[in-house]
Every structure is written in structure tokens, then in C-alpha cells.
């Protein structure tokens, strides 16, 4: 068997090992490869920067543990930024059943910058029903969520007294891993109520979502872990996304190198066979 043939039938465990070693290395010892900011991420940041005191922002936690590593840094970045904005009210909701516990974990672990639960931010929890639930939420928030995730009647929360429907929302941001997610929000809230809308996505969902950005339905987006790292850079912090960027770079290089080697071997053996 020639060297090229051996290369083509490489044991998959070697592929796994190379990837494991090269991804582990930058996680343990970051290299700090510089990162440019995409216009989509910058648009989200700029919009949050322009929010006036009294603005109401809905952050929807529509992801679960499977995309936690990629999307929780997005949630941390946007909520930290919103906490920094004076007078901005934050409503956390979820149309994925795993969302509320992740929202609660975030709200109890970050610096709220003096904002108080019930007065400046709230976690409403989860409601079943997917797209229908989004529509119901937009039409009547109090009826859809009579109590919050901490079992307080939401009519007893000072910040919720004047927030009744999607007409009272200044900005909607979803961290969406799938369906219900971007298209459903665009159909049920952004379109009918003209609410400025953006989202954080797993990188694999970015190509299918780009038409919503170009059409203006979404004002921007955070694309995968890189989007979160770009946002951290704009905030001037080094969070988990920034730390993961070097590992992303090396893992992409490993995949590309393997594809390149396999194709060179493929053409070399094909030539040898006289094809």
C-alpha cells in the first residue's frame, strides 16, 4: 500500500487525537489571535448603546445545554451590556423549556450594576406552544405569564405595571438554537408590532438567517461563539467566548488541513490508477 493510500485510510482515532490535542492547547494557554468586528455584531452593540432610559428589552432564552458552550456567552454578553445601560428594563423569557433555568443562572451570577429584580429586570420563565406562545405573549404579556419564574404574580412587579403588550417593547433579542426562533419572532412580533429585533445564533444557522438581516427585519446578529467574542471585545471584557476563539481557529485549521491532505491523496492515487 502506497503512502497516499495509507493516508486515505487513516484511522479515525488519529484524526480525533490530533483535533483533541490542538483544541486543548489554546484553551489551556491562549494565543490571543486578533479578531475583527463584523458589521452585524456592531449593529447590535450600537443599538443597545442608543437605548434611552425607560426602554424595555426582551431577551428570549431559546436554547438548551447542547448549544450552551456556543450560546451562553452570547447571553452573558448582551445581558451584561443591558445591565450597564441606565434605566433600561430587561424582561427574560423563554420559548424553549430549558431557557428559564439558564436565564436564572445568568441573572444570579453576573453583576446587575445596581439594577433590582422586579424593578429593572425580571425572569418570566417558559410557556409552551412555540410560535403560538410568541403571538400570545406579544398580544398580552400578563395573561401569557401570570407569574414569573420565581412564582411572583407579575402584576405585583413594579416594572411590569406599564408593560402589557409587544407595543411596549423597545428591542427584542433572542438567543436561538433552532425552532421556535428567528423566523417565528419575525412573523409574530417584529413584523406585526414593528419591534427592533436581533438575535444570537449557533454558527450553523447563520447562512439561513442572513436574508432576515439583509431585508432589515433583523438589525444585526451575533454569529456563533465568534459573535459573542466580538461583542465581548466591544464591551472591553475577556469572557469565555474570547478564550474560546483560539481553539475555534485551530479546530478550523485542523479540519481544513485534513480536507486538503485527503484531496491531495485522492488525486495522487487517482493519477496512479490512470484515471
Amino acid at each position: 500500500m502506497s503512502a497516499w493510500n495509507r493516508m486515505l485510510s487513516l484511522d479515525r482515532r488519529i484524526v480525533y487525537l490530533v483535533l483533541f490535542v490542538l483544541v486543548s492547547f489554546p484553551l489551556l494557554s491562549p494565543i490571543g489571535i486578533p479578531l475583527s468586528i463584523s458589521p452585524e455584531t456592531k449593529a447590535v452593540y450600537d443599538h443597545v448603546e442608543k437605548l434611552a432610559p425607560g426602554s424595555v428589552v426582551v431577551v428570549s432564552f431559546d436554547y438548551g445545554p447542547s448549544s450552551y458552550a456556543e450560546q451562553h456567552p452570547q447571553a452573558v454578553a448582551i445581558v451584561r451590556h443591558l445591565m450597564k445601560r441606565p434605566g433600561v428594563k430587561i424582561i427574560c423569557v423563554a420559548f424553549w423549556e430549558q431557557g428559564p433555568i439558564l436565564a436564572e443562572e445568568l441573572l444570579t451570577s453576573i453583576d446587575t450594576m445596581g439594577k433590582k429584580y422586579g424593578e429593572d429586570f425580571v425572569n418570566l420563565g417558559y410557556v409552551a406552544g412555540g410560535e403560538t406562545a410568541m403571538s400570545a405573549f406579544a398580544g398580552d404579556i400578563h395573561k401569557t405569564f401570570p407569574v414569573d419564574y420565581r412564582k411572583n404574580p407579575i402584576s405585583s412587579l413594579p416594572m411590569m405595571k406599564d408593560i402589557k403588550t409587544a407595543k411596549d417593547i423597545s428591542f427584542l433579542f433572542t438567543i436561538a438554537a433552532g425552532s421556535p426562533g428567528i423566523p417565528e419572532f419575525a412573523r409574530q412580533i417584529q413584523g406585526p408590532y414593528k419591534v427592533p429585533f436581533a438575535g444570537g445564533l449557533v454558527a450553523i444557522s447563520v447562512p439561513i438567517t442572513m436574508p432576515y438581516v439583509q431585508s432589515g427585519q433583523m438589525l444585526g446578529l451575533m454569529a456563533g461563539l465568534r459573535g459573542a467574542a466580538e461583542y465581548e471585545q466591544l464591551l472591553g471584557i475577556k469572557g469565555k467566548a474570547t478564550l474560546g476563539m483560539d481553539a475555534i481557529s485551530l479546530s478550523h485549521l485542523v479540519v481544513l488541513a485534513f480536507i486538503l491532505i485527503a484531496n491531495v491523496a485522492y488525486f495522487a492515487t487517482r493519477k496512479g490508477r490512470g484515471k
Partner: protein
Amino acid sequence: MRREVPLVITFVVGVVVVLDYFFRLGTGTWSLANMSREIQNWTLIIAAFALGLAAANLLRVHAGYIRTRRQGWYNSVALIVTLVIMSAIGITQGTNSALYRYWYTGFLVPVDATIFSLLAFYITSAAYRAFRARNVDAAILLVTAFVVMLGRAPVGELLWKQVPDVTKWLMDYPNMAGQRGIIIGAAVGALSLGLRILVGLERTYLGQD
């Protein structure tokens, strides 16, 4: 009657919700908006019951697997044990209790994230084995994937400064054209299916052909 009643309910509910999306008609209890809102609230209640029903069905199916010692039955044991434990804690202490959060963040999050992370290894191995420039189409796909992957990683800019611009062009033009076609095609399909359901031509949701 078993066929007509569901068809009439579907038609009335569908027409009310669709009209409410486009028009504001009437005021008070019998306004289109209010009727639509009530229908949506019923849907939420049905959806919540469906979750319970799904959990009960999951228990029934996997209890059957254990009883018949079907291949991999021990996975069903793990599923039932964890389902019962998490449900019991959630119902008795609430999903915001320390104990529930401990199990969730200490058990479910790492297990789920680990399984998802394994995809990176499978994708690398699969790309190595299957991603070949066998013909012109495959070669175009390969080159495009190569550029986009480089463009999405910070290291791409170090290797070639123009790579983010090329990636952006690929996303904004060829990708956008294809994705728009898919989205518009799916929307037209959904519209057509919706109309067929409303007028009773599409009845598969009733369990009939």
C-alpha cells in the same frame, strides 16, 4: 360527524386567527383580536397538557422496552430513572430550587454539552473521508467551504487579510440568493398547505389520507 366537526373547528379557528393577523375588526369580547387571543390561550393550555402526555407516553414506551428486554433496554432504565427524579424534584420543590438547579447544571448541562461537542470529532473525521473534489460541483463546494471556514475563524485574517471580505461576498450574494429561494419556496408551500387545511382538502392531520 367525526369528520365534519373537526373540519368546521379547523376552518373557524383558522379564519379567525388569520384575519386577526391582518385586520382589526370589532370591539370588546366579540372583537376579532379578543377571539383570536382566546384561541391562542387555549392552544397554550393544550400545549402544556401535551407536554405531560408526552412524558407519560415516554414512560409507557420505555417501560415496554425494559419489560421485553429489547436491545439497549438499560438505556431506557437510565431515561426512566432520570425522568422520575427530575420530575419529582421539579414538582415538589420547583424548577428554581437549589436541588433542581444542582442536578440540572451538574448533570444535564455537561452531559448534553459533551454529546454535542463530540460532533466536532465526527465532522472532522467525516470531512476527511467524504469531502473530495470529485467533480466541478464538488470542487466549487469545497473551495467555498474552505474560504468560509477560514473567514469565520480569526486565524483566517492572519493568513490572508482579504478573507473576511470574500466570505462576506459569498454570504451576501450566492448564499443569500439560495437561502431566499428556499425561504420563499417554503413560505409559498406553507401558504398552499394552510389554504388546503382551511378548506378541508388536506385531512392527514385527522389521521386520514
